[in-house]
């Protein structure tokens, strides 16, 4: 599959979901199970993405000290209630700094 196809398919898929939300009858949300499921899916996907991007390179697991330290710094920044962009800058800065040593 070509990267262009992935880019366009992602764009169309995401748009279809946004439009779907505006069009679907409101009744669906009345089911508490549906509400809970839809609430938890992003949690599962985001967590999995963090783990894989922190620890994996393709199909091999690797421990990149600088990258993990960068993520640790991000956690610290979040605990200190830093704004979104500050969290990102701190994470990248710590990783870059450690690689410079």
């Amino acid at each position, binding site marked *: *599959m070509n*990267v262009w*196809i*992935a*880019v*366009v*398919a*992602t*764009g169309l*898929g*995401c*748009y279809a*979901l*946004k*439009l779907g*939300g*505006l069009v679907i009858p*409101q009744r669906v*949300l009345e089911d*508490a*199970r549906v*509400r*809970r*499921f*839809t*609430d938890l*899916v*992003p*949690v*599962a*996907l985001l*967590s*999995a*993405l*963090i*783990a894989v*991007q922190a*620890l*994996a*390179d*393709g*199909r*091999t*697991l690797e421990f990149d000290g*600088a990258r993990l330290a*960068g*993520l640790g710094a*991000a*956690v610290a920044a*979040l605990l200190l209630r830093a*704004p*979104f*962009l500050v969290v*990102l800058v701190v*994470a*990248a800065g*710590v*990783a*870059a700094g450690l*690689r410079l040593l």
Partner: protein
Amino acid sequence: MTSTRPPGSAAVREPAVDGRRAAVRDGLGVGVAVGVSGLAFGAAAITAGLSVTQTAVLSLLAFTGASQFALVGVIGGGGGLAAGTLGAVLLGGRNALYGLRLASALDVRGWRRLLTAQVVIDETTAVATAQQGRAAMRAGFYSAAVTLYAMWNLTTLLGAVGAARLGDPETLGLDVIGPAVFLALLWPRLTSARAPDGARGQVGVAAAAMAIAVAATPVLPPGVPVMLAAVTALPALLSRKADR
């Protein structure tokens, strides 16, 4: 994309005009502040191997940060494009829920609805739902939407062009940006008890999803482990009777 400040307090005084003005101020503030993070996305996409054009088109079409980061993350990891696309789209599923929530307040039909749909995302929903009354909700929603769409696409382009001219992205720590973005998006869900299950249920799902994804990484093609981790949300759907 998460640190949307609480709304201005001016909405309390005169609901009609002041409420709308405060909503527009909120919308502009969030749009500009969050829109700047398009720089990070542009840089991450180039790091992952997308061209500047592909990066810009993805921001124009998808316009939902987490999905975009997810797709380029999988591509950067050398992963299957089909799985990456599916994961990115699935992650965009929460925008459908936002739409459900906003539909009656926005009350748009025809071509307006087709245009409005594109900007139903985390930040615009956050600004809209923070306002009092329908007029203020709409004012906040659309001012955030227009500002954010313009900023996000502009900064995506700047980030992509900038990163394309810098050498090895790893020396700048740009490979940490992707996971750090997801962490920052996830954080409020894990630390606030606003969710139906409270924060504890969410933390359980998060831990299980991480374990499944890491365990599956050596045995499945890149991109698939993340999709597989979505099964950790299934018990919520299967439980015969919901708690609340």
